[in-house]
């Protein structure tokens, strides 16, 4: 297997970005936040062609930022994202159409004042994938592909339901004929019965079009369903990476285990009283991450060592990687 998408030591720092007023205020002695946020720090990841990698973590863990770095929406502060050997961003500008994005909220990601047919065809026309005269037929083709009736091409986004809008957003991304698809929480804002439709569509399309996908979600059951491999993020770092069933079966990082334990499960027994294995405390502020391993203040396995040195990502059996000093104590022995 060759690496189709490869990230090597990618970091993204959001600076304090002070306005003129704040600069003056800070000179005069006011307390102005001057620290910067390391949204993504030193992430390495390779994805093979046709593979779906699920990216999970709690809010603020940097999963969306990482998705946007791969999508070329944001330039990385350091490191390069390569797709099939060529960089996604050149001179701070996106240099490829081979990676496209599906956003979380289909009510916000479609231009409310543009007919949906135009929205789908606009990118392909700009990049010579379709001629202006054939725009309608081209958009119609992708409309059908995502299960929408092409007679709706002349309508505006407000005339569609959430699920239909997400189909339109998917059609827009696919019409660019990408090799790589970034899905940023594509079903999070949809109703349960609609979620299933979109997930099925997604499974069908990634298979038929041989798409390489990064699927970002906070919903573990969705990620488990669609992904080949899963990456768990905490405070800007990937703490665990591996084949989906392996990781779910036997988490190697204490955070992964705790995260899985927090997810409410369907209770079908009258007398069972569910206990949640809750994680103590909250995610620390990314403005002042803890010393050593970022997870150590909440970690039941943390030792003195963890507060001093941050662990490196280590490869463990079954093509998995984990960023933890004590992963062997977490892994269930077989």
């Amino acid at each position, binding site marked *: 297997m060759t690496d189709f998408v490869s990230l090597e030591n990618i970091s993204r720092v959001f600076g304090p970005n002070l306005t003129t007023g704040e600069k003056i205020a800070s000179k005069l002695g006011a307390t102005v936040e001057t620290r910067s946020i390391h949204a993504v720090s030193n992430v390495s990841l390779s994805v093979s062609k046709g593979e779906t990698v699920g990216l999970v973590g709690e809010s603020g863990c940097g999963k969306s930022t990482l998705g946007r770095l791969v999508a070329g929406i944001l330039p990385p502060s350091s490191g390069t994202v390569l797709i099939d050997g060529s960089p996604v961003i050149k001179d701070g500008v996106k240099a490829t159409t081979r990676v496209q994005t599906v956003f979380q909220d289909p009510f916000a990601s479609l231009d409310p004042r543009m007919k949906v047919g135009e929205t789908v065809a606009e990118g392909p026309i700009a990049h010579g994938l379709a001629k202006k005269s054939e725009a309608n037929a081209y958009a119609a083709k992708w409309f059908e592909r995502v299960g929408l009736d092409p007679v709706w091409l002349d309508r505006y986004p407000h005339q569609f339901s959430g699920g239909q809008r997400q189909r339109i957003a998917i059609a827009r991304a696919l019409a660019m004929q990408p090799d790589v698809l970034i899905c940023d929480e594509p079903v999070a804002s949809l109703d*349960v019965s609609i979620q299933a439709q979109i997930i099925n569509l997604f499974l069908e399309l990634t298979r038929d079009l041989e798409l390489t996908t990064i699927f970002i979600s906070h919903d573990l059951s969705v990620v488990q369903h669609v992904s080949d491999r899963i990456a768990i993020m905490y405070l800007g770092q990937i703490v665990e990476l591996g084949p989906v069933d392996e990781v779910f079966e036997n988490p190697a990082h204490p955070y992964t285990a705790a995260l899985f334990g927090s997810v409410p499960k369907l209770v079908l027994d009258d007398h069972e009283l569910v206990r949640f294995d809750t994680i103590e405390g*909250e995610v620390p502020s990314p403005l002042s991450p803890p010393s050593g391993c970022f997870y150590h203040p909440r970690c039941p396995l943390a030792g003195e060592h963890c507060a001093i040195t941050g662990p490196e990502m280590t490869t463990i059996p079954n093509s998995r990687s984990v960023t933890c000093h004590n992963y062997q104590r977490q892994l269930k022995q077989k």
Partner: protein
Amino acid sequence: MTETVLSVKNLTTHFFTRSGVVKAVDNVSFDLAKGEIMGLVGESGSGKTVTGFSLLGLVDEPGRIVSGSITLKDKALTSLSNAELRRWRGREISMIFQDPIATLNPVLTIGRQMRLAIAAHERTSARAAEDRATDLLSKVGIPSARARLDAYPHEFSGGMRQRVAIAIALLHRPSVIIADEPTTALDVSIQAQILQQMRVLAAETGTAMIWISHDLAVVSSLASKLAVMYAGRIVEQGPTATLLRNPRHPYTAGLMNSLPAMTKPGTPLKQIPGTTPSLLSLPPGCPFAPRCQRATAQCQHDPELTIHGDRGWRCFDPVGHMDEVSS
């Protein structure tokens, strides 16, 4: 038989908009016992939030409760004047919202807001009020509660803010709390902490709760009884575990089956076809019929609620089987 604190009969709330009448809540009935947690499940636009607002008398123009009765501890809320309702709201019945920012005043400290909330319904000394606020804040899991009384809402994280909102809702030990998707915006680890605490609080204080959510798993781990809403009506109700194990309404069954956990990873999910209907133009008869694979000519008529023991459903041809006789 436990004591019933809230009884809702044939509640119907309509919105009279420029495009027509939106039948947001249609003929909804249920009872709630002391300390009981009921899950109210449905998708967006199913009327679950409007049901909650109707119970609090918070339905705004152009909406109106058209018919039905709400009885809270032998008091008919539907016949109260606005001023009387205001006295009940917050003391006997209160609400927790999805977004706690909307309920907290950004320019007042938490302690001040809690003291004001107490003073709205009873006279206590400042000392006693502060003690009560501190006590509740620590009960909902806020560390060093007394010191945090002087903090402003923006100094709390999202999860902590929701805890504060819950503490405020509990201030007067209301008989009923309506919680509208209070953990939806929170991370799973925080959600787990809060669910855990809510269950303990309900048992401890005897407060009954209506937990509105779209997430079957959350509700199943919290509520002892469940009502599933579709297109403004309750299509199925009953004890949570029994109902989820053996759903009778095709919609409930479809919802359950569409969950990723119900299908082998990587294979297509069992989806419900079609989209949720607009409440403006509901088809005649059963509103779920257009999406239902079992629909027959009979479904052109609206099915009545069929009651079987502690369960009920609105369907001519229910799926599943009769429940085993409960012990």
